[in-house]
């Protein structure tokens, strides 16, 4: 732990910024200075670009950066998941080689976890990794890979042992994406966007020193990644643009980076149902006068109020240190699905036959049509509603687990062809 007082930190950060911060630098040059100065990730250990700060100490740094409009290190896409996982579970050699270029933005990363044959059941994955002449040879297919089309590296889970129970035969790798054995194809979704990719690995190669956490320990490493993912709210979250009226080369390049990163996710607000558009549309079209529509709008308002109050109550309980189990995350996620579906239903009632339209000439410049065909994603992405219901019923209501058909050696478990 670093003993610096919050006042000392304020003084030191400002002095350092006065000395080093220059909006006319290139984005990469600025970030190199920032990382080497130790102010990029002050909560990290001092051995690796940090200062051993507590969250409270780091918050002071973040606040000053924000006030002065200082551009931070690269955060978009899954790179932060890779960085935090390597920091937590990697060895010193891996940390020295990989962390710095992640922070400076030189290297972009993707996450190679889900497979066509294992979605909810991630530990049922069947991408194969074999040690041949001191190198890992990878064969298999991954899917739903954000940013894979421009990633330099990927965090990869693959099976190294088929004769032990499924969680025990998984290993965690860092794979170089620019190699002949790796092919990335965009995956077009039902709403026409392609926000993700499929990644095909055919005799792709991973160096022996890029195994993280040891052979067969991949599930523990992956769980670290997943817990960061939950904390960060998913890799697909979009980042805001440049705030305020700042000028300089570094801002231009930063803005461009964010625009590219956010582009695949412009439809994300629509998958949540655009509740914000419901009342204005209902009033504008006069649908608010229709008794049946009014009933459905009222139901939507009820759900939304219930969800927000219940989540606030859960948060208050958590803060007061109550032992009562409140699965705020799972209930909140389930609520988001119900609310999104009801919002889509109400938008349909408001549009009536006009809901047949799509594109810029349709309601709200096409946003309503996009709501109607994007809402099915909300109850699948980041853990299906069914998985959330399992979590709620087992952890909170302590109902018994479903009987399993996937114990014993992985080789013997029935799986997708």
């Amino acid at each position: 732990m670093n003993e610096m007082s919050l006042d000392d930190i304020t003084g030191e950060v400002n002095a350092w910024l006065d000395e080093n911060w220059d909006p006319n630098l290139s984005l990469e040059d600025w970030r190199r200075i920032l990382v080497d100065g130790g102010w990029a990730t002050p909560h990290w250990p001092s051995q690796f670009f940090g200062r051993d700060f507590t969250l409270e100490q780091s918050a002071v740094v973040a606040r000053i950066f924000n006030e002065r409009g200082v551009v931070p290190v690269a955060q978009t896409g899954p790179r932060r998941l890779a960085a935090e996982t390597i920091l937590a579970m990697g060895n010193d050699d891996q940390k020295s080689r990989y962390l710095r270029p992640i922070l400076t933005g030189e290297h972009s990363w993707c996450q190679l976890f889900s497979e066509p044959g294992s979605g909810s059941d991630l530990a049922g994955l069947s991408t194969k990794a074999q040690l041949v002449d001191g190198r890992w040879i990878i064969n298999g297919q991954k899917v739903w890979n954000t940013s894979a089309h421009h990633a330099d590296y990927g965090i990869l889970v693959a099976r190294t042992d088929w004769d032990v129970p499924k969680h025990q035969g998984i290993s965690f790798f860092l794979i170089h994406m620019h190699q002949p054995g790796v092919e990335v194809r965009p995956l077009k979704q039902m709403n026409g966007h392609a926000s993700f990719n499929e990644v095909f690995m055919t005799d792709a190669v991973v160096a022996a020193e890029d195994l993280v956490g040891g052979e067969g320990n991949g599930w523990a490493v992956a769980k670290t990644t997943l817990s960061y993912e939950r904390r960060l709210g998913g890799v697909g979250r979009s980042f805001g643009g440049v705030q305020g009226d700042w000028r300089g080369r570094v801002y231009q390049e930063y803005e461009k980076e964010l625009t590219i990163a956010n582009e695949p996710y412009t439809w994300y607000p629509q998958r949540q149902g655009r509740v914000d558009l419901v009342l204005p549309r209902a009033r504008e079209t006069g649908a608010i006068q229709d008794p049946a529509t009014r009933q459905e709008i009222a139901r939507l308002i009820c759900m939304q109020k219930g969800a927000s109050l219940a989540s606030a109550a859960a948060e208050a309980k958590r803060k007061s240190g109550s032992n009562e189990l409140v699965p705020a995350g799972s209930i909140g996620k389930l609520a988001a699905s119900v609310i999104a579906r009801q919002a889509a239903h109400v938008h349909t009632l408001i549009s009536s036959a006009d809901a047949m339209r799509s594109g810029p000439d349709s309601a709200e410049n096409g946003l309503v049509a996009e709501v109607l065909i994007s809402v099915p994603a909300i109850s699948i992405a980041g853990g299906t509603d069914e998985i959330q219901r399992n979590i709620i019923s087992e952890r909170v209501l302590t109902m018994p687990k479903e009987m399993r058909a996937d114990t014993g050696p992985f080789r013997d478990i029935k799986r997708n062809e």
Partner: protein
Amino acid sequence: MQTEYTEDQEAFREVVSRFLSDKSQPAMVRELMESEEGFDSQVWQQLCSEVGLSATHFPEAYGGFGFGPVELGIIAEEMGRYIYCGPFFASCVMAGYALLASASEEAKASLLPEIATGSTIATLVLDNLNSPALVGESLTAREGRLSGNAPLVVDAQNASTLIVIAGEASGLGLYCLATDATGVQIAAVEALDSTRKLASVSFANADVRKIGDISRNTLEQIWDYLCVALAHEMIGGAQHLLESTVDYTKVRYQFGRPIGSFQSLKHRCADLLMEVEFAKAVTHHAAFCLAAGDGEPYVASMAKAMAADTYMKAAKEAIQMRGGIGFTWEEDTHLWYKRAKSSEVFLGTPAMHRERMMSLMEETA
């Protein structure tokens, strides 16, 4: 505005819950629901004088403890959980709030302390239980004489005092008379939920004392207070059903495993938990709003609609998940099922309340 219960309020809930868990066990509920009066006068006396619940929400000036809708909500929630059988809702909540909102100072000073001690059982006579907008059409008062019929009055057969809202030549008035007054006829009505006693009350030119004026706005406000208390009753019942049903699925074995291990049941229990949590949060919020005189103008209707839908859903699931045993008289679930059904429509259906929500929202938009 309050956003969560204080430690004192949580402690108060403990006291209420301990009393009711002892004095309102299902076997007692069954005995009382089969009886004509439907309540145990000894328990009622204890509840009023020893525990002091009947005086909770009345101002100290009228013999009360000076608490408000939040503490009343706690009582109602626990009463709903244990299906307390007694004239609490009719006398303390319905008649009490009508008097507080619109009776003259003199009437409040003479009636409320008696209701607060439980020595007087009163009830509120409304000629329509569906919507505040429809009240005052069949009961009319002209020159000190009351006429007309109120087909559904809660606990009228147990009351000594009737507080009546009646239509006047223009507007509404609040009236008071004794149940044994000349021209008053009270007839028990067979109730679907026999834990809540109902009677029809008719007046034939009955001599009546006017104790206050009621504007339509005031009636809407009284309705809000009643709905929020009733919503608490309902979420208490829903919470009980959720808990008892989940417990049952853990001990009932079919196909060699507890039925609670089947996802078809687990997932529905998870959904139910979510709905109960939402209805509880909104209902508690509604009481906080009333206490602070703040918040959404439609919050009471929102709470009533959500609590009603959730209670009914819990009741249906509670029976369905028990299978055949859930449909028997011997099993207790039907007590809550019937409570849920009668509460669903008492003081307005969920659809009426959603419509009322929208009207109130659009008025202020």
